[in-house]
């Protein structure tokens, strides 16, 4: 009995390892091939090269796209974290009629397929006459990202003793002062998390950006366009750069999210 349990456990662990290999294979492959000299990426590997990085480095379109992506991601991060914080705090503190409708409105966007949102936003923005601007991507991405920010910050507020805020009021602080001195400092790690996560989501989003951007391409839109052409190892170089950017953001987000003391001292 003990023996068979050990065998089952071993099989499951090996299975788990295979699943993780499957999940990380495309990421690792892309990084390896970004340094590989062959035009068509296959085995055995060619020689080590930096030429794909040089190609993208000297491409003004890529720089332009990187600039666009940066502007969009930072703006979206800030806007959606602010909106997410407001929503999370409302949910944490208040009970009111139609609160479920309110929360549904706040949290539903990620459940709608991006391609549908992309079409809807494209049509809506042309209807109100603002299509093809860089900042329309910011408006659209904020819709998608605010729920993530809300969820992250809400989980942190959950750990806050509800009496902490009332204690501040009893000591004479106004609601605004209590917010500034108690709630925001408590939520700061999750605010940083939310900022990084929403930036990562925005930085990788391609469907909505592709539809509403017009001529202002972001990095994922450039990748999509290269994909539509021939096989081009440039993608691996851009991809590696994109991976490291998003991974850095996600890892920072998780560090702030999980490795802080869960309760107030």
């Amino acid at each position, binding site marked *: 009995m003990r023996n068979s349990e050990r065998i089952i456990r071993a099989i499951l662990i090996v299975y788990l390892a295979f699943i993780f290999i499957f999940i990380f294979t495309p990421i690792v492959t892309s990084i390896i091939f970004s340094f590989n000299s062959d035009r068509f990426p296959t085995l055995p590997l060619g020689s080590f090269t930096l030429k794909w990085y040089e190609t993208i480095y000297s491409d003004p379109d890529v720089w332009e796209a990187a600039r666009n992506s940066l502007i969009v991601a930072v703006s979206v991060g800030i806007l959606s974290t602010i909106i997410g914080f407001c929503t999370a705090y409302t949910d944490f503190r208040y009970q009111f009629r139609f609160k479920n409708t309110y929360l549904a409105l706040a949290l539903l966007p990620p459940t709608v397929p991006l*391609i549908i949102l992309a*079409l809807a936003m494209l*049509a809506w923005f042309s209807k109100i006459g603002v299509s093809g601007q860089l900042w329309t991507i910011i408006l659209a991405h904020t*819709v998608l990202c*605010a729920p993530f920010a809300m969820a992250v910050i809400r989980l942190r507020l959950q750990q806050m003793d509800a009496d902490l805020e009332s204690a501040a009021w009893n000591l004479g602080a106004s609601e605004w002062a209590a917010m500034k001195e108690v709630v925001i400092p408590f939520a700061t790690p999750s605010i940083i998390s939310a900022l990084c996560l929403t930036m990562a989501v925005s930085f990788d989003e391609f*469907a909505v950006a592709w539809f509403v951007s017009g001529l202002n391409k972001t990095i994922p839109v450039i990748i999509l366009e290269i994909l539509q052409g021939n096989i081009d190892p440039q993608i691996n170089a851009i991809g590696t750069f994109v991976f490291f950017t998003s991974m850095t953001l996600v890892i920072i987000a998780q560090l702030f999210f999980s490795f802080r003391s869960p309760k107030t001292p």
Partner: protein
Amino acid sequence: MKINTQKKAVGRIGSKVDGYALTWRLPVIFWQLLFFVGPLLFTIAMTFFLVKNYRMTEAFEMKNWVKMMGKGYFWDSYFLTIGLASLATVVASCLAFPAAYALAFKVSENTRRWAIFFLIIPFFTSYLVRTFSWYVILAESGVVNNVLGWVGLGPYTMLNTKFGTMVGYMTLTLPLVIILQTLPIANVDRRLVEAAQNLGANGFWTIVKVIIPSARVGLIIGAVFCFILSFGDFVSPYYLGGSKPPTLPIMIIDTTKSGQQWPRAAVVAVIMMVTLMVVAFASIKYAYRKKS
């Protein structure tokens, strides 16, 4: 200095709405109505518009609906998309379950936390680049066929097949499904599991009779998310699946980008939304049904 003892009661329970409360409550309402609900409602309205001389004119006609729903190729795509998304849901749920079970029961809590940490990373990294990687790996002269060639197998055609599409869908959905399954399975009451084992159930029957029923809601939520993501994804069926025939998301892109037929694309979008709502509501209803 004021003493605000009253505020606590009002703030926590009451529905007193003041400037402070509204400051936090209104931003999301304003934003989502303007940039989420607005666009979706406009999409529904747009299905009744007409396109004349490449310009969309506002109207209230059923032409687009009649046109799209009368076409055989639309229904081919519709059932293909539902079929692929359902297959992806079954495959992802089955592939994820042993992994989630192992993470919940067979590893330490610390390992589980790290595993989930690593499962979150791909969710926030470029799906496009990962798809391109698979394209290279699965190609006729790609890495997989290369390795198989060393042992005298292949080459197999994996791109432009349903297999290719599934690999792409799994790349998109599997990490999320594993996370969504692991959390409820890890929360299954250990005493129930021990009780089942004391009563003589082996591992298999413990899973079927105790763990799956206890974690049912979470397992279904994972499946629903998998369905939604695969149903709406255009990247895998296009770049890995070959898009013959196109799935509904690809049809939206083709109709919008090349045909300038936004109203017809909107018809496809609305049908997709309705389908997803039916699937989601039916699943949630099933998840929370009373045990007979």
